[in-house]
């Protein structure tokens, strides 16, 4: 109970600090700390899947993306970016009240669903063994509610295309921090790169029975990509080659092909024929999401082997 209160209060204070902070940099740091405390909160509530996703995507990759955006803003404008403080208007108050009411209503619904007759959860728990999956989260994401997941992957792709369109062609010249020249970087990269790949693939495979899955694995791959970009092993390229394009769409494509293929053999749309299809879809999703995040970090349409 003490830890519950401590985590809840800490999250509110950190969120407040991230928004109100005197400088933009301070706000970013508070946002990353917020993500870490949120990770602890999910772990404390017994949701290791969400904790891993929050640590890897929320605090890790998003933190890196915001940090590089801040660095570029300073570099391009050569001034401290102005902190857009939240406007203290009456509208903000109305939105705050509405948002609080919405969160409260969802919380109330969730609590009452726990005590009431949770039909969907019961049916899922009964049918989960038939799918060969042991992790109910993966079951919901890939088998039971996979239209939602397909749309999520499509949204990632659409968001990337929108970001590319907004950045334009000259974005390949976006500055990146110079790679630090220190003899420690090579041992770091040669140790972490294979290790990260092994852990990512393990997470993907373990996700069928234990906490893990495509989103966590893709965030790990994205973290590796960020490391490679920052250490100069991989650099931005002015155009995307076919491999990059294929990697970006493979998640949505494989998901759609499996889902539509079911119609051909007479099964319902988006039915999952077996555990191999779960692995196939998740592997494709991992590549697409990971690559999208790295390309956003590099701020370029493509990647090249070595940074000049």
């Amino acid at each position, binding site marked *: 109970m003490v830890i519950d209160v401590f985590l809840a209060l800490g999250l509110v204070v950190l969120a407040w600090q991230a928004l109100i902070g005197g400088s933009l940099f301070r706000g970013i740091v508070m946002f990353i700390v917020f993500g870490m405390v949120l990770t602890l909160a999910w772990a404390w509530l017994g949701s290791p899947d969400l904790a891993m996703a929050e640590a890897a995507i929320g605090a890790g990759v998003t933190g890196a993306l915001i940090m590089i955006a801040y660095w570029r803003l300073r570099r391009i404008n050569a001034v401290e970016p102005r902190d857009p403080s939240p406007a203290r208007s009456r509208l903000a108050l109305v939105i705050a009240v509405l948002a609080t009411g919405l969160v409260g209503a969802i919380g109330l619904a969730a609590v009452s669903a726990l005590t009431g007759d949770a039909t969907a959860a019961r049916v899922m728990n009964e049918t989960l063994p038939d799918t060969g999956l042991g992790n109910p989260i993966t079951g919901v994401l890939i088998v039971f509610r996979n239209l939602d997941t397909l749309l999520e992957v499509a949204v990632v792709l659409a968001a990337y295309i929108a970001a590319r369109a907004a950045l334009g062609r000259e974005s390949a010249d976006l500055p990146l921090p110079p790679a*630090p020249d*220190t003899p*420690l970087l090579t041992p770091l990269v040669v*140790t972490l790169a294979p290790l990260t790949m092994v852990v990512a693939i393990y997470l993907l495979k373990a996700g069928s029975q234990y906490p893990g899955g495509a989103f966590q694995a893709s965030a790990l791959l994205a973290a590796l990509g960020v490391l490679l970009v920052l250490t100069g092993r991989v650099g931005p390229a002015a155009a995307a080659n076919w491999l990059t394009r294929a990697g970006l769409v493979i998640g949505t494509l494989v998901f759609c092909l499996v889902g539509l293929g079911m119609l051909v053999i007479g099964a319902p749309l988006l039915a999952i024929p077996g555990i191999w299809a779960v692995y196939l879809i998740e592997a494709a999703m991992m590549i697409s999401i990971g690559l999208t995040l790295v390309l956003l970090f590099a701020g370029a349409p493509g990647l090249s082997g070595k940074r000049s």
Partner: protein
Amino acid sequence: MSLLLDAFAALLLLIGAFFYLAGTVGLIRFPDALSRLHALTKADNIGLLSICAGSALMAGELRVALLLLLIWLMALFAATVSAHLIARRSLRDAEDSGADAGKSPS
């Protein structure tokens, strides 16, 4: 024997917590980047080692102990490189601003 093991595990956890506390106090109270790093790396190394060793004793399984050892080694590696990079950067900033090496703005 079990009681003795538990007591030893608890002692290790307390030692770890103490090093983390000391490292945090150092991070907040020390005046410049290099001495802050000095305080923080102690927490990273010995603090995490003590907590991992205490947790391994409490788990009482070789597999868990080896995993915890791996976690400690990876954290140590990452902390070493990042501390090295921060120290280099703070030295370079200090040289650029013409101040004494080690007394850098943080």
